[in-house]
């Protein structure tokens, strides 16, 4: 399926799943699929970085494996872990079996040799807990690995990802190197709260998703809420674009636009007026000082 895909089919597929992608996004996804490289997406909060991954997993029918990063995340949480409890339980339960097995041996040395030849039993995939990255590598079907908010993790974790992302393999000391069965489509998102290291950037395609252009944002609103009429959607988006230039503490993003559209469609509003805006301003402005600025803008622009 992947080989027949073009940029156009990607944007069509995404559109069918309610995600309106621009050319840059479609091209990036296309390249990532063809070149088997991860995409690093940066951009302000709420412009649809995680949304892209979700829409893609449905559109391409790749099972989604999500790894949410946080400060202090380590390989035990991201790659794999051993199930010590299970290992211990098995040794206890198999004690009689082991006794029988070892009783054949003539002396201690032989017993040790016999036992060590079976060592691999206790460090096998049977006792391995797969964490997201390994799970996506082991998946029979090509999967979509979403590493969300990578900027929240520590530098050490970033270094850990390097091997996984460039070679699609995980080294487990007891088992050796495990290579991905099907190379997953990897999407990393970052809000830019910390600079991601150059080493990681180099291994990825870099996609910056900013606030969408007017037409695309109108299309996004219309795609999600078809009962909002074209003129109202346009009016909303123009207003939001002006609000974004106000130097607000938290400028309204696409997700706010969608929330607002939902509120307006519930209220059955068909035109933006200062009253409508001041009634619903809490949806688009999330700080007290912002509320005031947005209401002022509404009285200036819409009166």
């Amino acid at each position, binding site marked *: 399926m992947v080989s027949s895909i073009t*940029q156009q089919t990607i944007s069509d597929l995404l559109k069918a799943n309610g995600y309106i992608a621009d*050319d*840059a996004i479609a*091209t*990036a996804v*296309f*390249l990532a699929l*063809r*070149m088997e*490289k991860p995409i*690093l997406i*940066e951009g302000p909060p709420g412009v649809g970085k995680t949304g892209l991954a979700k829409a893609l997993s449905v559109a391409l029918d790749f099972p989604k494996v999500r790894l949410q990063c946080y*400060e*202090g995340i380590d390989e035990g949480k991201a790659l794999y872990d051993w199930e*010590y*409890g299970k290992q*211990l339980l098995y040794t*206890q339960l198999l004690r009689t079996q082991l006794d029988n097995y070892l009783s054949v041996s003539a002396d201690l040395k032989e017993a040790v040799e016999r036992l060590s030849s079976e060592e691999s039993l206790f460090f096998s995939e049977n006792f391995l807990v797969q964490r997201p990255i390994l799970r996506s590598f082991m998946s029979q079907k090509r999967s979509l690995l979403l590493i969300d908010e990578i900027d929240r993790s520590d530098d050490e974790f970033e270094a850990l990802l390097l091997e996984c992302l460039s070679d699609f393999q995980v080294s487990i000391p007891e088992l050796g190197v495990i290579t991905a069965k099907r190379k997953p489509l990897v999407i990393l998102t970052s*809000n*830019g*709260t*910390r*600079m991601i290291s*150059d080493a990681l*950037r*180099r291994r*990825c*395609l*870099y*996609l*910056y998703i900013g606030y969408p252009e007017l037409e695309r944002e109108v299309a996004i609103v219309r795609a999600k809420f078809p009962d909002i009429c074209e003129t109202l959607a346009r009016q909303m988006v123009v207003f939001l674009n002006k609000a974004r230039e106000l130097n607000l*503490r938290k400028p309204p993003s696409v997700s706010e636009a969608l929330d607002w559209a939902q509120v307006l469609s519930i209220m059955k509003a068909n035109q933006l007026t200062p009253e409508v805006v001041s009634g619903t301003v809490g949806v688009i402005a999330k700080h007290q*000082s912002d509320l005031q600025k947005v209401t002022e803008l509404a009285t200036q622009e819409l009166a």
Partner: protein
Amino acid sequence: MERIVTSFVAALREQGIRVSPGESIDAVQALGVCGMKSRKMSRQLLRLTLVKNVNDIPTFHEVFNLFFSRYQFVGLDEDLPTLMDAAITEIEGEFTYLDVVKDDHDDDLGPLIKIESEIDPEDLAELKSLTEIDPDDTDGTEMQVKMKGYRGKAKKPPRPTRRYTQNPLTIELDKSNSYGDSITFTPEEQIAMQDVVSKMMLRLRKDMKRMKNNQNRGKLHVIRTIQKNYRHDMVPFQVIMRRKRREKPRLVVLCDVSFSVSHASRFMLLLLHTLHNQLLDVRSFIYNRDLAEITEMLANMPVNDLMETIDTGEIVDLDENSSFGEVFLKFKKNYLENLRGRPAVIILGDGRNNYGDANDWVLDEIREKSRYMLWLTPEERDTWSRGDCLMDIYGSYCDKVEVVKTVDDLSLVVEDLLRDVYADQAHPIDRKLLREAKAAQTYDSADYYRRGSAAGSEPVFDPTGRSKW
């Protein structure tokens, strides 16, 4: 094509965008996969593969437009595997394209190269079909590669802007004062400084050590517990806990380096420099009207060299009047988003804004992102609202405003802060103990200094009489 990409990469490097050979291979591969259907498309492909930072995107567009200024795309729809192979060897082969462009045209733009619309991949790999043509005799399907100036020479470092003399104003303006005649620290001062710091460390260490042991205690360490209890037939008599990664308290310091408080800032920087990596994770900024981060420089340069560099005005222009409002805005714009882990913020300055915009709302945001905000000012409380001093306004946003007039004041304040910060991160059992220890300790040392100065004896750090600012 690979030559075009490599020389384009060289052009990007010239403009200070860092592109690795691996990324150029990606670019060629991407062009091979997608084909060069349109100018816009190729620009996107190159951008996706070569630029890895938002701030570099505008520069990239500039270079792209300049580089392909008269470029028109012709149909090259072939899948070009051989081309890619060639590209890879090309890139690894030390950028041989440099030789090709020796015969340059006299005019500003480089040689014109014609790409025929029907080429087979093998030819393209050797660039046989790219022919140089006369600039006047063009029929539209040519491209011009701008090569002049893109010979891969290293980007020149920016010229230092030495608008300011090597000798700062302080000398002339404060001859009568006890500022001394040099801004760098004398060896004696540095030794005295280390003395202050080591005493401080001694006082702190005792409490920190105990606290760290508890702070590090985490969840059950299963393997080590099993190992330890093997001799008891797996009955867990002895429990081993995992150790957490040690967290150093984070600190962000903004130091005014304008001449009114310069000596205080310098001392502060030296103090933090000494403390950094021992107890703290410090990010240091200096500001006047401009704001610059000097964390890296503090870590890598000898402290005196750094002081001299600051004095020359290379980092921030010392000629300007300090403007707190502008500095806060810049801080919000460039750094506030990447403050990690709720640091303690220390601002050192006199709050004299030279009648600019106060922008005090930014402080509110900084306050939200930080664990604790402390303002250090050398001015007495009476003068906080006089003239252009906005200390009263700014102070209302801070957790604490301290008046520091001497080096000893400063070291006490910093010690206090360290205890506070550590106590916040401590294990609950220790928190109370630490707070009590802090109360006792700081009282003692404060008392010690007071007695010292009352008796007229030598203060701890005052070899040149400069510790009064």
